[in-house]
């Protein structure tokens, strides 16, 4: 597959993710958007790794990104649950105890 | 290429149907072979009901995902020494990954149905599957550590007399311990199977087997679909062909897992019979890779091993009572996982002995 295709796909994924993050009000949806953005980066990394045949740094990086994203997701879920317990909603617009 | 695909799909359907046959009525057609067809026809005619309250898109897509993920798992299985789906280097890794997608499908099915039974079933199912995925994965890691490969075909090759076909310098020793000095490279048979090569792999296989039962939602780990509690679990709202897909993938999963177990631990398509001196049983009961004999022998050994395992699973289903959810979770997290971790550590040391 030509590199450009993958990069375009990555860019599209990133933009979609960003759009989701910006427009969605539900915390979970935002998290999904973030996940899309991360995967766009992963796609790029793996694609570029082709030119780094000796060390495959990009692939290793992608592996780490996946791991960290998983950890982040775990923490995120825990926090969202906590928020849900307190606010009875995951709508970001309604979660605004802190202001100023 | 298309021919190949159709063949594979056909073979898969055949196999799935074949297993369904075993507990279905044996009367349809000669040897019950037509049962599948009858089932399918019946299901095709059934009305496709999508509940009003359901999330339509998710509800409709879920069976597809479940089926596809299980079916795609078959792609990397080496059926014989020279025939199998894909030869990708990361075969086992891919297999575990794609089968995990199953979980998403199940969750979608449960969620999409918007039924309390279905959702609860799905949640339980997911909790169970992911819990058992850990010991499953760890026990697979044990095998990989010893075989140093993710390619299933290569793993199988290592377990038989054709080991030198992939690595001319490779040698096998009794129990894998080089220091014992008993070379089994050309003896082959069950002695070079992983489960004999590395004796404690018996425990690994035990973990693998239990976990795989749970993975396939089979009894005694079938609380997600417990008829008596949850009616039918996550697929309670399904009917017709979609339901058929779900059932099909469940049995497909069983078979897949059985294949995997056979490949990883029981020598795959390798013959169980060793060469004992001049009595070259192993040579006789397996063809050279690439020849027709090789195909036939390989397929025979593998399929019989897998079917034996499936038989075992069905036997267990009717033998053991269902576990409660807490017992189930305890078993996974408090016994199997720590056990598997210890096995991983032991395997690491064992591998050193093998060099």
């Amino acid at each position, binding site marked *: 597959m030509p590199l450009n295709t993958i990069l375009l796909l990555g860019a599209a994924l990133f933009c979609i993710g960003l759009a989701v993050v910006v427009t969605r009000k539900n915390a979970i949806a935002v998290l999904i958007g973030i996940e899309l953005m991360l995967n766009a980066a992963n796609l790029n990394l793996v694609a570029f790794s082709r030119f780094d045949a000796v060390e495959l740094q990009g692939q290793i990086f992608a592996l780490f990104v996946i791991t960290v994203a998983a950890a982040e997701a775990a923490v995120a879920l825990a926090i969202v649950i906590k928020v849900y317990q307190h606010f009875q909603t995951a709508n970001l617009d309604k979660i605004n105890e802190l202001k100023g | 290429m298309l021919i190949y695909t159709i063949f594979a799909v056909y073979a898969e359907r055949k196999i799935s149907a074949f297993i369904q046959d075993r507990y279905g009525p044996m009367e349809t057609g000669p040897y019950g072979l037509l049962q599948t067809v009858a089932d399918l026809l019946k299901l095709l005619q059934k009305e496709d009901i999508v509940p009003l309250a359901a999330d339509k898109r998710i509800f409709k897509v879920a069976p597809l995902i479940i089926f596809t993920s299980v079916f795609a798992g078959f792609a990397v299985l080496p059926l014989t020494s020279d025939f199998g789906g894909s030869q990708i280097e990361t075969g086992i890794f891919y297999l575990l990954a794609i089968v995990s997608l199953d979980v998403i499908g199940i969750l979608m099915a449960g969620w999409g149905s918007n039924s*309390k039974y279905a959702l609860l079933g799905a949640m339980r199912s997911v909790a169970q599957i992911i819990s058992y995925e850990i010991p499953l994965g760890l026990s697979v890691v044990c095998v990989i550590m010893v075989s140093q490969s993710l390619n299933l075909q290569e793993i199988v090759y290592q377990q038989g007399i054709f080991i030198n076909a992939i690595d001319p310098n490779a040698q096998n020793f009794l129990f894998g311990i080089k220091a014992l000095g008993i070379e089994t490279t050309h003896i082959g048979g069950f002695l070079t199977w992983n489960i004999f090569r590395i004796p404690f792999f018996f425990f690994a296989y035990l973990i693998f087997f239990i976990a795989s039962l749970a993975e396939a939602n089979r009894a005694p780990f079938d609380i997600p679909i417990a008829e008596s509690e949850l009616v039918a679990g996550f697929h309670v709202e399904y009917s017709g062909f979609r339901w058929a897909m779900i059932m099909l993938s469940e049995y497909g999963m069983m078979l897949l897992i059985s294949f995997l177990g056979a490949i990883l631990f029981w020598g795959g398509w390798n013959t169980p019979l060793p060469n004992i001196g001049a009595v070259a049983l192993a040579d006789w009961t397996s063809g050279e890779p690439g020849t027709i004999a090789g195909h036939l022998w390989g397929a025979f050994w593998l399929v019989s091993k897998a079917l034996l395992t499936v038989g075992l699973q069905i036997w267990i289903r009717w033998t053991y009572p269902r576990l409660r959810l807490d017992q189930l979770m305890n078993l996974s997290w408090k016994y199997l996982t720590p056990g598997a971790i210890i096995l991983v550590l032991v395997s690491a040391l064992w*591998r050193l002995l093998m060099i």
Partner: protein
Amino acid sequence: MIEPNLTEFGTVLIFILGAITFVSVGLIAASIIRPKKPNYEKLTTYESGEETIGTAWGQFNIKFYIVAIIFLLFEVEIIYLFPWAVIFGDKELIQGTDYTWAWFAITEMFIFIFILALGLAYAWRKGYLDWVKPVNRASDFKSPIPAEAYQKYRD
């Protein structure tokens, strides 16, 4: 059998497409022959004949989430174990470095696993692994089997 210009992953793709095709074909075939007579009763959610109240999309036992999180932890561990498992016992590397490689890799991974095992131990100790046991309510049902037998079975 495999066309030379198709990579191994191509085969996998064929499988996936095949599965989708199979399902689609099946669905299309079914849609042609199957009856289509929806009525309200059929379309209601099944709840053992009871009327459904509300939707099912409510909150779940927190334990499900905890299991999910712990699973995530170990699944991530396994991600690292796979590449390591393939390389740590490499014959050439081990013999080339006179076993230093192996010991280094093993120590490293042992530490990694040890820390994760500590995580498991922590979760265990803090009781996150204990699923809520069902409360045994006294049943009115007069069973011929003595209660002790049930108890024995439950534990």
